[in-house]
């Protein structure tokens, strides 16, 4: 039985690793997903999509009705900086990227689903990977 985190508590894990030895994963609630994946339900959706970190930016899209994602439609890196992170690996700034990034829409009335299912599932997938650091963005 995992320890339940009190809502007022703030979990904190120190970070002291050089970036050049760091593998990064990206998690976003900006509504990004692969065009080939089922779109989010704009009326409320607490689910997530796995976005391979080697995805072409042109294969990504945004389904989200609660913010103006014109910029993200033109350049997904404005909300989901997948190409910037790949560049940082290519030039040695970062060690690598987790093969799996994670996209959510974030707008949901089913908070319990996020707390009890989606968040622990994403955390477990990341725990089982070689990820050292997670970068997150909202919309």
């Amino acid at each position, binding site marked *: 039985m995992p320890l339940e985190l009190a809502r007022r508590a703030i979990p904190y894990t120190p970070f002291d690793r050089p970036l050049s030895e760091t593998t990064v994963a990206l998690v976003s609630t900006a509504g990004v997903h692969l065009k080939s994946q089922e779109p989010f339900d704009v009326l409320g959706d607490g689910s997530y999509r796995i976005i391979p970190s080697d995805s072409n930016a042109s294969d990504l899209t945004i389904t989200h009705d609660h913010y103006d994602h014109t910029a993200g439609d033109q350049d997904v890196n*404005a909300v989901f900086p997948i190409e910037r992170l790949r560049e940082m690996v290519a030039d040695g700034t970062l060690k690598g990227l987790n093969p799996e990034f994670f996209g959510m829409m974030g707008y949901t009335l089913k908070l319990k689903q996020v707390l009890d299912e989606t968040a622990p599932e994403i955390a477990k997938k990341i*725990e089982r990977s070689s990820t050292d650091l*997670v*970068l*997150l963005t909202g919309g």
Partner: protein
Amino acid sequence: MCHRTVVHVQRAIEAIGIPTILITVEPTQTVQARAPRAVHPTFNAIGTPVGKAGDAAGQRALIERTFAALYDPIEPGSIRELSLS
């Protein structure tokens, strides 16, 4: 609301022992949701948390400043404001 949901995921990841950092453009929601580590680029807005479309240099600079904040930690739950220059 998506800025609250992202913090729920962030907290779950941090709680299993993997450090995280959030780029937020909704700092009030982020603080209320008790994010472990966050930066707020005051020059970016909702829809462009990482930077303007096509501004690769600006996006890259913001990510570098975000990662740099990892080495100069502030109290968990508070937000590091990033301003231009």
